[in-house]
């Protein structure tokens, strides 16, 4: 564990030897994944505690209903403001309120239904499931992008094996420990942005070390899949736009 913490710290500081030693390890991917999972769970632990505490002290149905009614009230005020700028149909507000109240009724109706195990058990299991899903969400994003980077790296003459390359790039997750403060208004968002940029820089460094690339080449390998994906998406939109024009003409 101490070794992993040291690796995480050195990765944050871009220490070349730490990256090189990590890539040279026989179990580079196992170590990297352990770090990624631990960091992601650590970042989500505050949210888990807040959610579990909140769920174990549930609001009364009356308080929940009051809160929902306040939400509808806020919506009507918003619609009233919009009336100054847009032509809102006269019965729009009334209809929307009716739909919201029906939706609320469905929600409260289901909430009031009995379950086989006590309700708090279900709520805690729900929170735990969401918490344990966090590493899988991060893994899906990392591996989904990683295979394209792996392809570009190989085309650029990279020498690392798949496990070395993926194991090295798991280090990108380390700065995301800052997400632990994600619940703090404004600061949380800013720290999240810092973690993203820091993570990308670590990704580039890890690729460079694993494949003995220059930083420039590693940067190209990192951004190329995103650029190609963006270009393809733009082309797709353009084709749709042209088709729509042709169809309307």
């Amino acid at each position: 564990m101490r070794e992993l913490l040291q690796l995480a710290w050195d990765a944050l500081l871009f220490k070349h030897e730490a990256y090189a030693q990590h890539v040279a390890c026989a179990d580079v991917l196992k170590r990297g994944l352990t770090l990624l999972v631990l960091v992601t769970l650590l970042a989500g632990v505050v949210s888990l505690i807040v959610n579990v505490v909140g769920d174990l002290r549930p609001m009364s149905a009356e308080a929940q209903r009051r809160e929902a009614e306040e939400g509808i009230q806020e919506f009507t005020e918003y619609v009233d403001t919009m009336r100054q700028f847009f032509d809102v149909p006269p019965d729009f507000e009334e209809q929307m309120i009716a739909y919201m109240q029906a939706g609320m009724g469905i929600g409260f109706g289901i909430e009031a239904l009995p379950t086989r195990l006590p309700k708090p058990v279900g709520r805690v299991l729900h929170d735990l499931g969401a918490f344990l899903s966090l590493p899988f969400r991060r893994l899906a994003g990392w591996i989904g992008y990683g295979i394209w980077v792996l392809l570009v790296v190989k085309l650029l003459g990279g020498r690392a094996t798949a496990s070395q390359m993926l194991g090295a790039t798991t280090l990108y997750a380390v700065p995301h420990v800052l997400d632990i403060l994600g619940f703090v208004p404004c600061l949380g968002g800013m720290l999240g942005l810092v973690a993203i940029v820091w993570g990308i820089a670590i990704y580039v460094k890890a690729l460079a070390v694993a494949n003995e690339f220059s930083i420039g080449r590693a940067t190209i390998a990192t951004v190329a899949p995103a650029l190609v994906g963006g270009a393809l998406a733009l082309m797709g939109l353009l084709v749709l736009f042209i088709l729509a024009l042709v169809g309307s003409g």
Partner: protein
Amino acid sequence: MMKALIRLAWEALFLSEAPCVEMRESSNPALRGLGLIVLVAVAVALVGLAGTALEWATTPNMRDIQEAVLEGIQQMPWYQELQSTPEFRGRFQQQYKLWWRIFPRMFGAPDIASAALRIILLPLGLALTWFLYGLVAHLFARLLGGQGGLGQTLGCTALAVAPQLLNMATVFPYLVIGGVVGTWTLLCRYVALKTCHRLTWGRALAATLLPYVAFALLVSFFACLGSVATALIFGGGAQ
């Protein structure tokens, strides 16, 4: 035996080439591979059943939910507008019951019977996919200069079942694994074919992806064939 198979799958999960080499050199790799697939699939299905049971025990009865949703819908303005139409109510009830048979399962409502059935269906499904993929991948690998035998290919590609181990986490209800297993399986297959047939990375990549392309083409072909047949049958009937 079981312990050795689980160790192989665990090592293969981390894209190590060692388990592929061990599988390739073993006396009966295809049979060992089949054993591994069945073992992993049954374990995953059993664990999934436990998770589903927990989810079922913490979810209200589906029939009660159906009633609650129907009551809510009946309060909505569009329903109140249409309910005066004589045929609407009957047709709506019919459609609503039909949707309720399809959508809850689609959106993952806990179903213990289906989860229990997976103990049989998952090993069958994974074994069938493994066999078909292994067969086609072997063909492409050999065409691309691979040196492994069919048994060796099947043994090594069976190790690509390893990412299914991630599904063991579904013992926790409400946990979402997402698309990570599919992508990871692809990577495991690449490592398996590269190691088994001693291919370069480019050829191994081609041998890994070409079976997917072949299956996609086959499915498209049959879809087109089906469309043409349907058009001929119904078009002919209209005339």
